[in-house]
Each structure stands twice: as structure tokens, then as C-alpha cells.
């Protein structure tokens, strides 16, 4: 079929009407913010948004009762990860009932899309998510978070745990170092909304 020239009538001379309308909207919001306190923004970082208990923030690696990683390096999270941001190397544990543990467990937080598939895939509740979402770093290398940082997670106390669908499964209790500190030092027991704390 031969090409057909289509002429589109675009209103290229709209006049000043639309411009004035846009400026009026801006002015209205400015005045509302200044005098009525109706701001649609918040004073971050002093002020923070409330997040849901199922919020999917930066990951946490949980621990066994003896403080070693709960993770057995089964690579389910790395397999499920759509962003391919989880890197694991595994080693031999002396306990023959466990056998395997991650010698390296790294998440590239810049690649991560925070979908929570890793948490869903984990058969051991070894990885959960926190509500922490303020991610800062000076280099890309710094944003690749390693096993020890994933376990310690110093700022977890501030934000509390996030997406953790297996929490009710009491047969497999896990320890979260940062939450234990939170309870010991501040007496706070965070729990899922609508559910009693641990």
C-alpha cells in the first residue's frame, strides 16, 4: 500500500489562556503550602513516611540460635531473583545435619528491584526484608552489601522488619540480631500489623 500523508491539525497558537491556567495551579499550591499547611511533601529526612508492616525494604539475613547464618546456600533466592542481584558462594559446615552455608552472600542493592521473591523462595526463612528504604552510598561497590552487613543491619532498629510471610511458622524460629538489640535496649517488640508481636 502506498504511503499516505496524514495532516494533523495541532493547535500551535493556543494563546495565553492555558499558560495562565497552569500558573494559577502553581500559585494555588504555593499559597496552600505557605498559609494552610497543606503540603503534599514531607520534611525528609527529619520526617519519614509511615510504611506498612509488609514493606519491602533492604534485606536481612537471619541467624540460628548460635548466631551463625540460617542460610544453607540453596540458591533458591538467587534462582528466583528477576534482577540477578544475589551472588552466593557456598562452603562446608562441620555439622553434618546442616552441611552447607554461604561463605559469601552478596546483594547488589542497586540492581535489586525489591520484589521480595527471594523471601518467598527461601525454604528456611533465612532472608527477610526490612522497612529500611533510605539507601545511601558513595560508590557502586558500597551498594553491594555482603553477608555480615546483611546479618548485622545496624539501622534495622530504626525501621523494623518488613516483608516476612513465614513469621507465623513457629517450628522454625530464627534470631534477628538487630531486633534483639532493639528489644534489649529500647524495649520495643515490632510485629506485623494486626498480629501480636513475637
Amino acid at each position, binding site marked *: 500500500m502506498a504511503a499516505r500523508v496524514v495532516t494533523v491539525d495541532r493547535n500551535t497558537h493556543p494563546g495565553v489562556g492555558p499558560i495562565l491556567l497552569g500558573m494559577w495551579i502553581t500559585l494555588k499550591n504555593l499559597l496552600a503550602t505557605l498559609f494552610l499547611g497543606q503540603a503534599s511533601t514531607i520534611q525528609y529526612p527529619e520526617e519519614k513516611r509511615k510504611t506498612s508492616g509488609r514493606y519491602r525494604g533492604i534485606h536481612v539475613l537471619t541467624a540460628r540460635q548460635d548466631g551463625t547464618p540460617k542460610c*544453607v546456600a*540453596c540458591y533458591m533466592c538467587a*534462582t528466583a531473583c528477576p534482577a540477578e542481584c544475589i551472588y552466593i558462594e557456598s*562452603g*562446608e559446615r562441620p555439622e553434618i*545435619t546442616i*552441611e*552447607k552455608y554461604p561463605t559469601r552472600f552478596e546483594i547488589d542493592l542497586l540492581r535489586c528491584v525489591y520484589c521480595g521473591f527471594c523471601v518467598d523462595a527461601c525454604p528456611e526463612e533465612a532472608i527477610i526484608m526490612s522497612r529500611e528504604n533510605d539507601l545511601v552510598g558513595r560508590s557502586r561497590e558500597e551498594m553491594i552489601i555482603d553477608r555480615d552487613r546483611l546479618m548485622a543491619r545496624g539501622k534495622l532498629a530504626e525501621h523494623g522488619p518488613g516483608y516476612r510471610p513465614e513469621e507465623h511458622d513457629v517450628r522454625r524460629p530464627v534470631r534477628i540480631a538487630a531486633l534483639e538489640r532493639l528489644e534489649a535496649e529500647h524495649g520495643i517488640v515490632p510485629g506485623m500489623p494486626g498480629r501480636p508481636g513475637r
Partner: protein
Amino acid sequence: MPRCTIDGREIEVPAGTSVIQAAAKLGIEVPHFCYHPDLPVDGNCRMCLVEIEKMPKLQIACNTTVSDGMVVRTTSPKAVEAHRTTLEFLLINHPIDCPVCDQAGECYLQDNYMVHGLHQSKVELEEKVRKRKVVDLGPIVLDAERCVLCSRCIRFENTVTGTGSFEFRNRGDHTEIATFENRPIVHNYAGNLADICPVGALLSHDFRFKMRVWFLESTDSVCRGCSTGCNVRMDHRDGELQRFVPRRNVEVNQSWICDLGRMLYKDVALRTRVSRARRRGASGAWEPAGVEETLDDAAERLREAGGASALVASPRGTNEDLFAFGSLADALGARLDFRVGDPQQKLQVREDNVLLRADRNPNTQGCLDQGLGRTGVAAILADCRAGAVRALLLQGTELLHLPEARDALAAVPFIAVMATHEVPELDLAHAVLPAAEWAEVDGTFTNYRRRVQRVRPAVPPPGEARPGWQLAAGLLRRLGTPFTATSARELFLEVARTVPGYAGLDYKVVGSTGRALETEGPAPPVVAAGA
């Protein structure tokens, strides 16, 4: 030939075929654990039960011979129920430690459970019979808890290697597989035990915790370790070889490879690989150079030398490499031969009567077929000593290792080597060209029985390394007689056209399992009696 009907489809099979084999021909997979096509039938796992008309009870498909008019049902309600209950029985004491088990992803228990099981276990994890875990048997790690007692390993040890290391011990649900006094497996075929184990009871020590198998990509290829040319599957990820596993080829290696061949994947990724070209500067010291410049250099020296040049091909090269090398020798009118093997390697492990052969080169037969044994290496070395060789081109470093060749090589003013690995002897050379290993190239090997088999590139070569035929083609172009072929596939057509006995071959004909040539080979140049 008896005809039978399996799941409503008729098939005619040779007399003596078992039902499981006949079903496999129809593409129907009967679930099984203990049956293995290259091992004697044992029939102990009871997983392959099928319903056969006029037989009162279900029969095991692996040990029932097809008879004329037999009507078999593999998916009738009775058979399906038998598969499910047998699997449930096998799983009673299974520890379900798939997250830490290397077999996960290629496990018969997992596969069969997803198709035939999907039941809830009636046994709590805490009530299961515990057995030995993580028993170190040298190249093999034994986990008796995961074992389904199929006896494949016992039959392998008894019939293939004749070593008989494994035996069952204890009785009832305490039965477990064991070696006497936990002695390690010492023979050269231990890796196959991990391959044939349908579950995670026997696992490779080398591959332990290295990789989950579903991340691996596979390339069909051939082992380089000896002139048997065992068919292998190269498993790799992100351009790095992870393991070799045997690929079934009844006419070459059945389902086995030796451990020496299995470990060859490690050679490919060594840090000592030659990845850049280099040549001697004016002062005689090494200086790095591009491959093209080094080829310019080498071509210049070879052209100057002309008939006073000599080429030594390697029986580790592919047929395509050798053909390019032969063409180069023709273009120069040079002396040409190839070296059979490294004499040191023959001493390390002798040949055995399973697969391994004393000739540790994959393509000696290819060299012979292409008539590369022209001058004799001894004659070339003698010419070198006499100063009649002005330029020497070596494929591989084998000749440099020979102590008796030292003085001869010292008398040659220019030696260029196509090397894959750095060795101290490379200091005898004047130019080094980086060559690709066999796992990085397209090509063919001809095994000792004159079977032409295909190798495929699984991983990219390091740095600037190139296949041997490309380096030789670069020299030919500079000498003014370029190839028309631009790929190994096209070059092989040239090989098929010119080499006696290879007529009609191409990569499609060779396929993934190879093509056997007539065993007599090309008629050798016979000197008539009395002539």
C-alpha cells in the same frame, strides 16, 4: 520381530527388547531408578511397574521382555497407583535435604515426585531412620540417607571396572550402601558413580557445593584426554567450564568417562593460559605484540626460509587445524610431521581395558589420515642440527619438552610456537602465538577407531587466543595463498573433499554422536615387492 502395543501405540522391536526400552523408543518414559541402559538389569526399585494384558499382576518394565501381541499400559489407574505408592515407599526415610543436596535439579526422586508422587508424607522428619551422612570416599561423597538402594553403583563396580568397592550392609530399613571399612574409591572411573547415582547418595567431591545445576549451560563435545574420544557434555556458566559429564554413545564410551578426562576442564581455565602474542625484540628480550604483527613477522621469516622451514603439527589439533597446517607446509614446500604424544604422560597412568588409551592425543588418527607424517620428527631435528632449518613453526609445546631436542632447537634461528599454556620451555622460542583450547573451538577429532567426532566451542578463548587453523590461515594469507574457507565448518568441507575416506562428510553428517569411517583407512602407499 515381536510387535507390541504400548499405551495404544504399536511398535515392532528386536527380539529380547525389554518393555522399558520399547517404551523409550516410542518416547514414553516409564519412571525408574535402578534401570540403566548400560548396566545389567536388577529390577529392585519396583518403580517401573506397568500393566500388561493377560498377566494377573503388574510387571516391571525393565525386566519383562516384549513378546508378540503384548499389550502394555503405563498410565492405567493400577500402574499410576503403583508408581505413586512405590515412590512413597522409597521416600519414607529420605531426609528431604534438597536445599543442601548437589543432586537437586537432576534428581530422579525430585523428577518422579513432581510427575508421579505429589503425595503428603505420612512420616514426620523426626521419625525417619537416620544413616551416615557426608562420608568422604575420596573423589566421592557418600550420603547413605538419600540412597534408594538401587544398586546401580554396585553393578557399575562389578561389571564396568570390576573393582567391586560397594556393597549393601545391614538389613531391612537399615540397609545402606557402604565400602569396606570406608575405604576410598581409588580407580580412575569414580566420577561415573556420581553420574549414575539417580539420587544424591553419591556425589562428586570436585563439584560439591560449586554450582546448582540449573544454572549450567551445556555444550556437546568430545574429551581431549586420549585417542578414545569419549563423548562429553561440557557444563559451563558465564564463560567458565564447571564440569564434564559423559554423554551416552554406545559405540564409543557407553555412558562413562575416566576421571583423568573429567578433570581436563580445569586445564582450560588455568591462569597460565597464553592470551597474548609476544616476540623477541632487537635485544632478544620478550616484548608483547599483537597477533597480527606477530603473524606478519612469522610469515616473513617463513617466506625467507621457504623450503628450509619445518612445521611440527600437534595431534591435539582438530582436523581443521591440521588441514590448515598441511596447506601451509605445501605452500612453503616445508618439512612436516607431527609428534605422537608426550612420552612423560604415558607413564603417569597406563592404559586400561575400559576406556583410557596410552595415546593421550585425541587426533593422532586424524594426523595419519591427512598424511602429516611426512618427514619424521627425528629427521626434522637432524636437519635442525645440521642448520638446514631456518624457520620452525610448532603447534603446541610438546617438542620443546623433549630433552633430546634441545640442541637441535638451539640451532634454529627462528622458532614460532602456537601455545595454549605458558611453560618455561617457551623461552626457547622467538615468537609465541596464543592458541585456543579444544573446548573453545569448532572442529572435529578422529579417534583411534577412525570415528570422526565433533567438538564445539563451550567457552570463549582467553584474550586474543584463536583456533589453530585461523593462525595458520593468517600465515597462508600473508604468503599469498589464502583459504576461501572462513569458518571451521567450511574448512571441514575442504578436508572432506581432499582427505581419502572423508568424502561426503560435513558437520551435519558427523552430528552429535560422530560418524565412523571405514576401519581399514586409506590405502597406505604400498611399495610393490621387488620394485
